[in-house]
């Protein structure tokens, strides 16, 4: 039963990872921008929802506001941080440092106003019930599975069928060629940031509801998204989602074998192993040297 219990919490964690990783992977895949401020988007969304919930705003409105804030931040980063750096042909590292600086600033601002500790939104959804003898499940697990399936189906349909989705995939392959076909690569970049940032919102809200969110969660989210993107294979959204899910499950299942303190390190060992032995990831195309 312990195994099933851990598997259930692994799936719960894995869904959160999959959602955040999908956003990161989408942005990185389409624009080749290493958006490490993705974790900051996560805490912005989470704290917006929390604050509005505290003042008694109806939850769908709070959710909408969280979406608005997350998207606004993502687009802001794209327009005012990444674009000027790319215009002056800054290296990958310049982008990385700038994005990292931004996420540190956001984290410390949130910390200043809300404190270091973790905050939690309480709902009846997180009350665990004994579903099977010895197995306690909360309704939030079902809710997050359903939401994740809906979200991923929508994203998949959008990327596969719509013109803009095709454009995004083209953007990752050859921005120059895209321009010569009369598509606007700047607008597509913004689009990638809009979708990518929006994807993180459900994960942020689920985290705030189920385990609580704190300013330092941003770093963790960023690291996990990064790990899942690489393990899944850069450029593959499907890979990132699957890798996020797998990392979440592994992290919980290893508790049966090693001390809990090691469970987080296991994800990064997996990442390290992939980088060393299979840098293309699960579904990635060959890495360009």
């Amino acid at each position, binding site marked *: 039963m312990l195994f099933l219990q851990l598997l259930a919490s692994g799936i719960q964690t894995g869904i959160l990872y999959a959602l955040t990783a999908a956003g990161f992977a989408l942005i990185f895949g389409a624009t080749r921008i*290493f958006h490490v401020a993705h974790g900051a988007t996560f805490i912005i969304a989470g704290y917006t929802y929390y604050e509005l919930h505290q003042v008694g705003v109806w939850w769908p409105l709070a959710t909408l506001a969280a979406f608005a804030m997350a998207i606004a931040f993502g687009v802001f980063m794209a327009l005012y941080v990444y674009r000027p*750096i790319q215009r002056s042909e800054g290296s990958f590292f310049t982008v990385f440092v700038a994005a*990292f600086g931004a996420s540190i600033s956001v984290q*410390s601002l949130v910390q200043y106003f809300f404190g270091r500790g973790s905050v939690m939104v309480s709902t009846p959804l997180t009350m665990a019930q004994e579903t099977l003898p010895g197995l306690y499940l909360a309704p939030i697990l079902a809710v997050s599975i359903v939401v994740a399936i809906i979200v991923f189906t929508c994203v998949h349909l959008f990327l596969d069928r719509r013109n803009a989705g095709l454009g995004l995939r083209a953007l990752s392959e050859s921005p120059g060629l895209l321009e010569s076909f009369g598509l606007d690569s700047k607008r597509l970049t913004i689009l990638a940031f809009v979708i990518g940032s929006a994807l993180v919102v459900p994960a942020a809200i689920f985290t705030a509801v189920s385990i609580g969110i704190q300013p330092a969660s941003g770093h963790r989210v960023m690291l996990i998204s*990064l790990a899942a993107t690489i393990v899944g294979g850069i450029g593959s959204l499907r890979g990132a989602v699957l890798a996020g899910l797998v990392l979440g499950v592994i992290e919980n299942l290893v508790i049966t074998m090693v001390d809990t*303190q090691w469970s987080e390190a296991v994800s990064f060992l997996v990442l390290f192993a992939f*980088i060393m032995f299979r840098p293309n990831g699960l579904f990635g195309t060959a890495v360009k040297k």
Partner: protein
Amino acid sequence: MINYLFSILTLVMIYGIAASSLNVLVGYAGIFSVAHAIFFGIGAYAGAQFSLLVSSDILLSCLVGAATAGVFSLLLAIPALRVRGEYFVAAALGLQMVGVTVFSEAHALTGGHGGLVGIPPATLLGMDVSSPGLFLLVCAVMLAIILYLVRRLMRLSFGRALMSIRDNETAAESFGKNVPKLKTLAMFVGCAFAGVAGTLFAYNMMFVNVESFTFEQSILMLAMVVIGGVGTLSGPLIGAIVLLSLPALLSFIPFIPPTEIGTVQQFIYGALMTLLMIFRPSGIAGKL
């Protein structure tokens, strides 16, 4: 008051060494390590264990710290040779996260979360150098030696070859440079210097635990290098001075509650990193 000034200056020297050592990797070799606090930590633990078990001579301890950190640099040299760019940063992040777990769980070597306590006062050739003034002098001399070494090394063919790899690896290789060897050596040198800084840090605090070697610390060191100026000799030192004097300066501003100084400092350096990358990517000391 004078002791307070000494303690800040000592920290500036120590972090100056750490940032300069990171600059060898980031600025000269183009290896974007975000796990430098791990090597700083390995140096600190090795130096501390040496002082507890063998001798409190600061020179010998620094050598031990440097050698240990240098050997462990291979952990990061292997991915540095195999992948680059985003992949390397990710590998370094992985090493950083696993390293912190090892630091806090390997009780026999690191004392776990409690850390290593009771590090004896530093001596140099049998002389006690643990008073704030003398210790500051030791750190300053060490910083001067390391800055001199970095300057010498980067002017030799080693440094020039390294910079050519940073700027264009394929071109350097086609000119017959042994890229793997040069990169591994650069990693070794950079991490060994970080080990020296770590050992000095351990003696300075007389106590080490994992708190000082976290991801945030790696980023702080990176911020020093980037804000000061990547690939310049004085840049990392300038960065260390700017970032370490911030908390002291902020404490003079009346409307910031003392408990929030750390947060405000973080905000300022985060914002500085972003703004500098947009408007002046070469840093304070860099050429435009």
